[in-house]
């Protein structure tokens, strides 16, 4: 079982790969809309990648209003 720290790091790593930003440039407290310059649709694409990576289903309502990596990671962690 992953720890929340591991989950958070994997979320950051996947986001940096998917949106082609330098690894290490993202921090847990970052707002992914602002930091990655993405819109709501691109955020949904990222969620699909994360679901595949972690092998979970993350209902849309779970991520409603979430905009930082730390909260996103905690929502994923609760479903692992």
């Amino acid at each position: 079982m992953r720890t929340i720290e591991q989950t958070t790091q994997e979320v950051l790593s996947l986001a940096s790969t998917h949106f082609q930003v330098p690894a290490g440039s993202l921090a847990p407290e970052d707002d992914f809309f602002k930091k990655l310059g993405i819109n709501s649709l691109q955020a949904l694409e990222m969620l699909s990648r994360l679901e595949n990576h972690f092998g979970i289903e993350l209902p849309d309502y779970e991520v409603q209003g979430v905009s930082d990596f730390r909260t996103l990671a905690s929502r994923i962690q609760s479903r692992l």
Partner: protein
Amino acid sequence: MLDLAKYPSIGAALKDALDQFADEVCLIESDRDREKDRLTYRDFKERAHPLAKALQDAGFKANHRAAIIMTNQSKWLISAYAIFYCGGVLVPLDYKLTPEEQWQLLKHSGAGVLITEYPIWRQLAALPLRAAATNLQTILVTEAPPNADLSGAKRWEEFRAAGEPSFVPRSRSDVATIVYSSGTGGRPKGCMMTHENYLEQCLALTSLYPFAPGVRYLSILPTNHAIDFMVGFFGPFICGAAVVHLRTLRPEYVREAFPKYKITYVSLVPLVLKNLQKGLQARFDTLPSGKRQVFNFLVGVNKALTKSQPRLALSRRLLKQVHAAFGGELRAIIVGGAFTEPQTLQFFYDLGIPVANGYGLTEAGTAITVNDLKPFRADTVGKPLPGMEVRIVNPDADGIGEVSVRSKTVMSGYLNEPELTAETIVDGWLLTGDLGRFDSAGHLQLFGRKKNMIVTEEGKNIYPEDIEAAFESLPVKEFCVFAANYIWPQRSMVGEQLLLVLHLEAGQSLTGELRRDIVARNHRLLNYKRVHGIVLLNEDFPRTASLKIKRNVLAERLAQQDRATAILEL
């Protein structure tokens, strides 16, 4: 289709539709690749009537208000129908608002009933704001887990009563819904829409885009939005068509839904339409050179043959694979909520997929103009719908002025805001605040806004005043938020942004610390409400005797600065 002219209310029309189309499929609900539910109109009635009876037993009467905060799903429509059946007033609220904003609107609307989903209720109940919504007595929650703490709410699934509910008739002039067009900060704008507004709008829209049994509408735009309420509920239901709901709106599941359910119509906001365009273009770009040449040739042939009007059957044969990806039965994509760039509209039309673009606002009863496709014009928002009188107020030398509308579809007013209503509807004409002109063929072209606001590509109306609370007590002398195009008019409807105008204290400078404070506050706002830049002004803001900022005067002063250099990146 029912003859809407003979009906006095939404409820009466829907009631007859459920009987007339009893055996037709009305709702399909899918979650990812799993179909969760499929209802006929008879099934729909069987689920709605026990709810209506339970509401009546709980004291819900004519003109009482009931709010719905739900994602798009069958229980949304079943609940709405039950409310109308009881003669109630529906208050559809946006599930994407923050819980604080939702409580504010629940309070403002005076709703006595709230119907919502468990995850939404969990967030609402976590805030100590319920006491302020003094009218709220009954809360129904759908899909709550077996052992969930409902915080005083009741389970929607168990809230039913035996026996037939009594149908409560309403007249055309009665208020049917209170729809919040925008504004959650200081001044919520609750548009009071009458039954007549909907009946007339439905008549006009279905004359251009007909629904019938067998037609399947994919409901993606939130149902609380005026467009989906009309074309994803009332319109299809009074024609016996089916509505498809997806519980997961990831792009891949939306794409799969088109061929899976042979979708006939879908409504999208410009952002999603542009994303579709991007995805299709990327696929076309990867075609091998030979295939690409053939494809481009076929697109050229399609363009030539559809110049005067769409020819769907022909386009489907010519560009078979493209149309197959959309299920092969798509008649039109309805786009709304915000301005769509002409090149995006043209892209789809050239592929033989008409995009029904138009122009409207909640206050006008959804659509004012729609492109009638005879011929297709990507550079305009179409001609006024039947029954709409549209005129340009105070046109300048180029014929551009404020668009105003008179029609049976215009709202009766803003809830609890007689002054705002009187400023917005003058001598029966709704002043839209948008700037436009008619071309020689009678098509409306838009050129920006007269009012200080923006509309995002996701279809969100944002008023600067509503987000200023996020910057309250910012350590500066004074501040104000503006739409950039209000200060520097662009004659354009794209690329709208909000700006934070700062008047610093004497000797103060825009330090890194101040910037970080602004960025942190900005991030607490939903992403589409954020400011994109800072403008500095080294003078006192003009104010009224009651110390309110004179925004128009301030905008004139700011306009003296050069836009390119005045806006500092955040």
